[in-house]
């Protein structure tokens, strides 16, 4: 087995607030090899975006980051200097954001912004950078790429802007690309195109990719590995097959019941819901965070929860099998 490109152990993010510390992300572990796609799934506020920003070193000033290990190709990111981080960002690790409408600077042309991404890291001429920009715009499926360079962001639709963002992230041929819900702000018809594009480019360039999403349909199609986050914790992680075929954490099963699966979900049957709301993460967080919504919750869930590992598949639950075969859930 080769060394993982990205290796994260016990990543913790704390946000000081007026009423105590918000433990936004607590002790998560994952790793990623070159060319692999990891999908992080979970509902809004579960800490997915914060995790990705923490990897890029783009967290806000108030947020405290700590980890036993967070290495990118052997470089420890938690102790890397700002200069070192800056050299990595945009060059070897790039990010695509959720909001294509506001993620491009309105004051500069598409060309200026694409070229900047390359010139910040490579000593090449402006002409060469422009040529690279045109090449990538064509690659992401933008027609008349040459003439787009002199256009401003406001002249482009959301879908086009997200393609530009993708091209911009690819300017330096990064080894890792992080896409934070890249399609949520787009029309449904555009969503599939953009995801397909990202996936194909990732394979073509042998990039590792972290795709943050709450769309399990997407996960099933593109992921090699899946990490399920709930309220700041990784409740289950493993190869995509294991997660979909043998979902072990009650939350993962809850999520899966929320989406219809062609061929599996019976016509006219009811889709699942997960009742309740996410608990507050301010102050000490103990035990299993899902216990307030879990149909199997018992008193012991307030104590320490063991991590159950089976090869690459891991989950956290007081029950050894996560009550995988419980009848109770089907009526929930």
């Amino acid at each position, binding site marked *: 087995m080769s060394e993982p490109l990205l290796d994260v152990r016990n990543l913790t993010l704390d946000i000081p607030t007026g009423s105590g510390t918000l433990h936004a992300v607590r002790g998560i572990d994952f790793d990623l090899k070159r060319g692999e796609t990891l999908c992080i799934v979970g509902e809004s506020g579960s800490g997915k975006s914060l995790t990705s920003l923490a990897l*890029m070193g*783009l967290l806000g000033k108030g947020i405290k980051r700590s980890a036993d290990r967070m290495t990118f190709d052997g470089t420890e990111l938690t102790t890397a200097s700002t200069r070192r981080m*800056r*050299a*990595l*960002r*945009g*060059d070897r690790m*790039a*990010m695509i*954001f959720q*909001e294509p409408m*506001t*993620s*491009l*600077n*309105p*004051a*500069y*042309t598409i060309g200026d912004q694409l070229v*900047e*991404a390359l010139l*910040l*890291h490579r000593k090449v001429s402006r002409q060469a950078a422009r040529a690279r920009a045109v090449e990538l715009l064509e690659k992401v499926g933008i027609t008349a790429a040459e003439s787009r360079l002199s256009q*401003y962001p*406001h*002249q482009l639709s959301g879908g086009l802007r997200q393609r530009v*963002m993708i091209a*911009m992230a690819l300017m330096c041929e990064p080894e890792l690309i992080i896409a934070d819900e890249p399609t949520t702000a787009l029309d449904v018809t555009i969503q599939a195109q953009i995801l397909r594009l990202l996936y194909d480019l990732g394979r073509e360039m042998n990039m590792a990719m972290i795709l943050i999403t709450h769309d399990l349909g997407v996960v099933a199609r593109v992921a090699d590995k899946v990490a399920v986050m709930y309220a700041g914790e990784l409740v289950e992680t493993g190869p995509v097959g294991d997660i979909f075929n043998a979902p072990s954490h009650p939350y993962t099963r809850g999520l899966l019941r929320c989406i219809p699966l062609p061929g599996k979900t019976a016509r006219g049957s009811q889709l699942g819901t997960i009742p309740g709301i996410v608990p507050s993460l301010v102050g000490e967080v103990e035990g299993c965070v899902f216990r307030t919504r879990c149909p199997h919750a018992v008193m012991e869930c307030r104590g320490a929860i063991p991590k159950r590992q089976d090869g690459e598949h891991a989950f956290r639950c007081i029950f050894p099998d996560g009550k995988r075969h419980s009848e109770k859930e089907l009526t929930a």
Partner: protein
Amino acid sequence: MLQFILKRLGLAVLVAFTVSFISFSLLFLSGDPAAALAGETASGEDIEAVRRLYGFDRPMLVQYAEWLTAALRGDFGESYYFRLPVSSLIAERLSVTMTLGVCGITFALLTAVPLGVVAAIRPNSLVDRIALFVSVAGQAMPSFWFGLILIVVFAIQLGWLPPSGTASWEHFIMPTIVLGYYAMPAIMRLTRAGMLDVLSSDYIRTARAKGANERRVLFRHALRNAIIPVVSLAAVQMGFMLGGSIVVESIFALHGAGYLAWESIARNDLPTVQALILIFSMFYIVFTFLADVLNAWLDPRMRTG
């Protein structure tokens, strides 16, 4: 863009005509301009004579039309007090006021923009608190009082600067500070708010994700966008400052257009006052027009829209 400029120009012209009418009608505010002009001791016959001489016996609109056509040619009539053409009186004094205005706005921008930027980069820091204090104090400071304090301290006590007059560039230092400080708080607040807003925007995060260093993020990506509204405000403030130069010029005895306005008002020299109000208004109208055009040009969304 062209359509925007033409529309904006049309508005400016319309505003200019309305303002000209208002400043002209000031003459009739006192009731009988002839009586005012002839003086308190004049007899009824004298007043009648003045009325005929200056044409006050004709309908107001006719007089306005005549005054306006003359004004458009640069002829504002004759000063009641100096018995000289108003236009040459003003032309003589305007350079002092313009110098003061340009110095004042430059001073305001050079202090307000850096202070606003630093305050926005480090909210709640010491610099931010100082900036806030300076701007809150500036908005409450009576400029005539501030000017007098400067004179007491720097001219009388320390003897560093001349208290009044226009003889050298040193004479302009204190007036520049007083006038500039008047415009500074608003510019600083807008710069700070704009920078705060822009710095939390998604495209700044994009710039950081690209690996741009902080200086590049701040100046190339953030300030470029935050400065757009500041340009408009500076133009508006410049217009206000020229109008407000009357106070500063009177304190420091700078013989500019503001000082002339003060004297002329005290002397009831209405043609001069009318002309000055009109000219100061025109400056404001021209500045704001230019600012809107510059603004549209700076903002690609308007330039290409």
